[in-house]
């Protein structure tokens, strides 16, 4: 702003700080809770400052697990989540970028029909088709497997659409120049289109990783063996354990750990993420 109005500046800052506090407070409480022992967390008032049990709590949840329910160490659940999230995210990008490539650069019969068929699936939320999907996955014997966790979620109309729009904005002359240079379609795809779409890929990676990591309903359906539970599932199960006083310190430690990977992805890929959504580099 050109004007210098100290009161307005102070007021704007106040609003921003208040907003941050409102958003950050639950996270802070989660962290604080994960650093006390179980009995402190059941007494009131609830502490607002970190306690001395940080390392102990995290050690227990990571390597022994939450004994009252599943009892599997959280490391396994985190590993499962990581495999699922990366699988979904990389799979989505691979499939949608090749689908978009086919739709934009090749003239085949029913090309537009194929595009609209993909596009229409955007209108269907996962929950609508979850029962038939479960039937298919169960019939293929993919219950309790990584493929069962990943493959049904791998198709993405949104990503296909995003890549299609990006490819349409790439000048035709680039494809023609590469043809004259002697590059075949796949060569063009790998040498020119992929490097040009790297910011779009980065943006999608962030979005889809978080999407994959936060999956709850599908893993809940498709796994019934503890060794395939994901971190998000484990957190939820702990809180709803019956016939026991919940150990909030461990539950919150698990929640903190389950939150961490998406945060790290956002923090480290923030720049590419924003560029992918905003900038079109041509």
């Amino acid at each position: 702003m050109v004007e210098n109005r100290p009161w307005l500046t102070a007021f704007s800052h106040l609003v921003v700080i208040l907003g941050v506090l409102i958003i950050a407070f639950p996270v802070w409480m989660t962290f604080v809770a994960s650093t006390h022992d179980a009995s402190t967390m059941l007494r009131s008032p609830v502490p607002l400052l970190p306690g001395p049990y940080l390392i102990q709590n995290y050690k227990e949840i990571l390597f022994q697990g939450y004994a009252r329910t599943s009892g599997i160490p959280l490391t396994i659940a985190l590993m499962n989540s990581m495999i699922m999230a990366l699988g979904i995210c990389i799979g989505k990008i691979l499939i949608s970028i090749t689908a978009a490539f086919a739709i934009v650069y090749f003239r085949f019969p029913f090309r537009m029909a194929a595009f609209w068929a993909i596009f229409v699936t955007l209108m269907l939320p996962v929950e609508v088709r979850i029962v038939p999907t479960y039937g298919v996955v169960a019939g293929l014997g993919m219950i309790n497997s990584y493929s069962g966790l990943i493959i049904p979620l791998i198709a993405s109309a949104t990503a296909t659409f995003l890549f299609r729009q990006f490819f349409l904005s790439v000048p035709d002359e680039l494809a023609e120049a590469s043809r004259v240079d002697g590059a075949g379609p796949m060569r063009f795809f790998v040498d020119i289109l992929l490097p040009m779409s790297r910011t779009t890929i980065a943006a999608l990676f962030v979005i889809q990783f978080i999407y994959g990591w936060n999956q709850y309903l599908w893993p809940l359906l498709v796994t019934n063996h503890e060794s395939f539970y994901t971190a998000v599932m484990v957190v939820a199960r702990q809180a709803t354990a019956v016939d026991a006083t919940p150990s909030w310190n461990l539950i919150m430690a698990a929640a903190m750990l389950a939150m961490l990977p998406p945060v790290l992805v956002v923090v480290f890929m923030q720049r590419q993420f924003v560029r992918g959504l905003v900038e079109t580099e041509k």
Partner: protein
Amino acid sequence: MATVSMRGVRKSYGGALEVIQGIDMEIADGEFIVIVGPSGCGKSTLLRMVAGLEKITGGEIAIDSRVVNNLEPKDRDIAMVFQNYALYPHMSVYENMSYGLRIRGMSKTEIDERVKRAAGILEIGQYLDRKPRQLSGGQRQRVAMGRAIVREPKAFLFDEPLSNLDAKLRVQMRVEIKKLQRQLGVTSIYVTHDQVEAMTMADRLIVMNKGVAEQIGTPIEVYAAPSTLFVAGFIGSPAMNFLETRVSSDGRLAIDGAALSPKTGLDPGRAVTVGIRPEHLATGGGLDVQVELVELLGADTLVHGRLSDGKSLVVRLPGNQVPTAGDRLPVQAYDGAWHLFDTETGKRLGTA
């Protein structure tokens, strides 16, 4: 280096609309051919058919007497320079220039040698590590040329390569491209809508209109003896004046009533259109022009006026002659400067 032959080349989209209606042309080895015409005349389509980017509907195109109708662009051994340069944005200048060679599996040392040599010719040696977006328009243009040169192709194809540059750079690059082509001696086909580029660069011109080659010839032939009304009006700036009239009973033309009556060998009563270039008119005698507007260009003065029968006429005078609007200006034409065209068919009939 090669010859290029087009024999009855046609192009249509889905049958009905024929955008190229049969072009016949033999291009000699090392010749610089310019295809010129208004937008939508099919000139770019024709070039893209030679390149292999558009399918050929009818006829055949041969490069070095090998028919290439069904060959992929890469197998035609041609290089193309695009209007927007089409440089790969994520590759450095060096990588851009060497990409085609790398695909062909050429050895690293030979690629390096060729790129360095081309960069030397084009004076872009110090930019080899830069990305296209770090270059100015003129430099990008050179890189696009470089990408074509390193391939050492049989023919260069240029698709309006200068139209994205500013006027001054355009003149400079025009001269450079022409020099370069002379130096390398590579057969070139150059598409443009700019008649100055066409006139100055071409060994031979193809003037196209609505998918037809109206005239093929050297720039001077096309200027001095345009074969149709379209060519006469398209080549030359300011454009040729046209006056519709009839051949009188004694075989003469009555221009502006009978103020001027050049002699023709044509049948009396025939409808003809007479063309006269503004630069072939001079003051004195004959026609009486009512001056309406005067444009001062410094070196020349363009006089827009009307004849006594109401037809408009543009006269180009030396810069030191400045009539004022409203004046009456006596005008005469040089001998043999009148171009005669058949009004109905638009075909050239001769001069008078």
